[in-house]
């Protein structure tokens, strides 16, 4: 009997040791943290992709210069290895490369390329492979569903709520400024198409403004003169144009060249990529245009990482003039993504994908960086900071500054409507 008990005891101890062995193996710290992402060096999305990539690289370089990123699960700093491929702005190429990052490179953290179009192939692939997708700026509402726990949007509010302040401003204050008729022109892609749909919904449900023009154009549209003439024929008081930077540039140029003026004009990138648009169309064409106010111009009180001026200083040092890197909202998105990953890695229990998910969801509402407060809903969509509405004004030095006009808690200026 005693012998039998000894045998059973031995088996039990061996079983425990056997069970513990994989756990010990799993907790062994990797030599490097592999972050996988894509970028577009060319093609229509290069302009929004490369600044994100440059911002992310800046954060990685900073971490590696300090001995690596701190990983809480191992109580030590581990160097980051960035594995990145060029998708050339092609969704087909991106799909192949996302697969490659997961199955061949076996990255620890998977980041999508910038924007909804190049994020769209990553969402089903990541879900299928049970790989958590750190969605940088793909804000298409369709990406976030109850049956997909493998995604979280990091940088900007999902499209279903992003245009809320703009719509609220027009609905609540529009009549005061004589804005009764509105024209909406948008580029038909996953991002601006969804934004326009949400915005139109807000306007329609309030019933304060009459929509006199609501049309989409291909994202490749480069000439807006005829469209502007068609819009002008509907006599709108307010015009909202939602497109990528190239669309905004062509629209603003054509508007100025053809001499048509609207009392209220909104474009997305006038305020978020001021430098790029100012280079392309000139300050005069952008004066009094309304736009979003992103963290790149509005200073949030941060509880983690540098403030916007601090980041700008680091950016200018890393990418001096002539380096080809473009400062702007997307640069900030890339760096902010790095800060979020830094907190995720510091707090995750392991590098298992669902533990990474737990870690990023635990940050919701508690992390405020230079991009504002990070808040996720239960489906992984970003619902933290909705970009306020701003208006571009001359800065007295031949350039432009962006004043915040709505909502009132952020506003530092009153809107000027009806002047160009």
């Amino acid at each position: 009997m005693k012998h039998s008990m000894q045998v059973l005891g031995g088996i039990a101890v061996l079983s425990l040791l056997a069970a513990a062995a994989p756990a010990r193996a799993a907790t062994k710290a990797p030599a490097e943290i592999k972050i996988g992402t894509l970028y577009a060096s060319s093609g229509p999305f290069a302009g929004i992709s490369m600044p994100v990539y440059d911002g992310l690289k800046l954060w990685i370089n900073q971490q590696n210069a300090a001995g690596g990123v701190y990983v809480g699960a191992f109580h030590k700093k581990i160097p980051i290895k960035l594995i990145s491929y060029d998708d050339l702005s092609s969704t087909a190429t991106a799909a192949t490369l996302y697969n490659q990052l997961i199955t061949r490179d076996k990255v620890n953290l998977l980041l999508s390329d910038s924007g909804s179009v190049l994020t769209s192939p990553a969402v089903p692939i990541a879900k299928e492979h049970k790989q958590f997708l750190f969605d940088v700026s793909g804000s298409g509402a369709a990406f976030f569903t109850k049956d997909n726990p493998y995604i979280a949007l990091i940088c900007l509010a999902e499209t279903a709520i992003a245009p809320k302040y703009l719509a609220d401003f027009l609905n609540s204050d529009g009549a005061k400024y004589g804005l009764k008729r509105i024209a909406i022109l948008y580029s038909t892609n996953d991002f601006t198409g969804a934004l326009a749909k949400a915005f139109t919904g807000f306007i329609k449900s309030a019933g304060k403004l009459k929509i006199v023009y609501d049309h989409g154009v291909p994202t490749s549209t480069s000439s807006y003169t005829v469209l502007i003439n068609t819009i002008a024929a509907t006599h709108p008081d307010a015009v909202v144009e939602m497109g990528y930077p190239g669309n905004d540039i062509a629209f603003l140029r054509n508007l100025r060249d053809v001499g048509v003026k609207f009392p209220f004009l909104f474009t997305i990138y006038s305020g978020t990529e001021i430098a790029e648009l100012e280079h392309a169309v000139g300050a005069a064409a952008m004066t009094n245009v309304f736009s979003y106010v992103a963290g790149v111009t509005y200073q949030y009180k941060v509880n983690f990482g540098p403030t916007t001026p601090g980041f700008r200083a680091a950016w200018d040092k890393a990418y001096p003039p002539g380096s080809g890197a473009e400062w702007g909202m997307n640069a900030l998105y890339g760096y902010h993504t790095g800060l979020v990953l830094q907190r995720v890695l510091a707090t995750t229990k392991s590098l298992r994908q669902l533990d990474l998910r737990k870690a990023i969801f635990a940050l919701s509402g508690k992390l405020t960086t230079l991009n504002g407060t990070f808040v996720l809903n239960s489906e992984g969509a970003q619902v933290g900071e909705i970009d306020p509405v701003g208006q571009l004004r001359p800065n007295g030095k031949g350039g432009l500054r962006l004043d915040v006009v709505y909502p009132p808690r952020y506003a530092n200026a009153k809107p000027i409507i009806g002047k160009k």
Partner: protein
Amino acid sequence: MMLEYALLAGAIFGLYFALAGLGLNLVFGVMRIVNLAHGDFMMLGAFSAFWLFRLIHLNPLFSALFVLALFALLGLPLYYLLVPPLLRAKDPEMLSFILFFGFSQAIEALAAIAFGPSERSLPGRLLGRGPIRILGQAFPAAWTWSGIASAAAVLAVYLYLYHSRLGYLTRAVMEDREEALATGIDVHFVSAIAFGLGLALAGIAGVFAPFMLGSATPSMGLGLTLQSFVVIVIGSLGNPLGTVLGGIIYGVSLMFMQTYFSSWASLLPYVLLILILLVRPSGLLGRQVRRA
């Protein structure tokens, strides 16, 4: 009013597209090869104008002259490097697709490294301030100048082809390369001139691209090649003057689409291409002018 505006805007835009397609058609007409890097040379023309203005404040009208000379000179060695080996192949047309596609990709990649991926443009005021009224409709002054420059370039090509000795030789090569060779024409020299002229026309079209298309990026080439290709197929492949008709039809159709079916405008090149290939594969001016 919307109809008249679309019609006039389409005509101006069409002239620009005619210029964009002219060089591509000249090269095809003379050498029977398709330069899929044509749009990339337009992109290089646009960036040349951008940097010439940025560095020495050169007006785009003068940049166009500079680009004309530079690209024409560039075309001569490029011709001898690329085209004779292609023409010796069994299927030069197909091989040219592959070779120039690779060339296009290389140019785009190098331009992205050199210039960055962002949109670049030129101030519209460089080609006149404020709108210009044509038949009661207001159009950007830059459009009008671009249209005039395009018309001038088309006229110059016409004069070259029909009123110069080199032009006669060029048309002889277009008619029958082997026969031209047999009659003692220096086919390679004539072709090299045509190739240089084709690149020069692409470069000039590129100079005006920031004004007509809003901005320039390294990735714009492929789209421009496609649009140029549609224009020359409509007019007639191998007939440079048919390009004018093709350009105007394409421009007017595009503006009508933008006015009345804006969401579908990007389908236009493909729809026109399919329609022309089904209904009149030789293009609208195919038969008459080639034999003129």
